[in-house]
């Protein structure tokens, strides 16, 4: 039972254009969401996060949007750069104590982004 879903395994975008990566979740107890970026042979690197009390968080070229009613979040990268080419993981956490560890990150399967020059 996948609680965090990234339905697009890959995405290809031209340099300078917008990249939009999508993520859906099923567990309404999730109240904190994160995006991680992963290069080959490296561990995931934290990119940006959003709390469920917000619907948008922006950091430079990266913006995360949260639609709680649809249980959907997206990561926008504008403008996209070749160095953004990596696998992007969406992760969710229930900061409230639920059924297990407070703060256990549940990851999606990832979306491989390729930004072409």
């Amino acid at each position, binding site marked *: 039972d996948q609680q965090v879903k990234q339905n697009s395994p890959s995405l290809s975008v031209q340099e300078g254009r917008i990249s939009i990566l999508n993520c859906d979740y099923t567990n309404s107890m999730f109240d904190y969401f994160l995006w991680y970026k992963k290069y080959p042979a490296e561990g*995931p690197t934290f990119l940006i*996060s959003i709390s469920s009390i917000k619907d948008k968080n922006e950091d430079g070229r990266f913006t995360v949007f949260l639609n709680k009613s649809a249980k959907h979040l997206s990561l926008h990268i504008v403008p996209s750069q070749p160095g953004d080419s990596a696998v992007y*993981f969406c992760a969710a956490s229930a900061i409230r104590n639920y059924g297990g560890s407070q703060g256990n990150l549940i990851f999606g399967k990832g979306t491989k982004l390729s930004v072409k020059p």
Partner: protein
Amino acid sequence: EAGVAQSPRYKIIEKRQSVAFWCNPISGHATLYWYQQILGQGPKLLIQFQNNGVVDDSQLPKDRFSAERLKGVDSTLKIQPAKLEDSAVYLCASSLITLNTEAFFGQGTRLTVV
């Protein structure tokens, strides 16, 4: 600031053998996690420590996996005996607080069981 250190980077063993991974978290980080990432999947939590106590090990296959966190700093993850399906990248991460809002990951150990 030094990041999360893991060793070894790569390990190849035969099934039924044992293996151990080591992790040194970022200095001062009370919370330490071990994740398993199978090829094509996202990382999955195996065990979470707060200082040297276990917070969550519900997804740790305890018949073959064990982990400890020595004096609340370094940690080791052991598999004995290994199975073919244990082939994965084992990621260690640490954070300042339990809320896992920003976990910092090490480079991981790629285990291949043949």
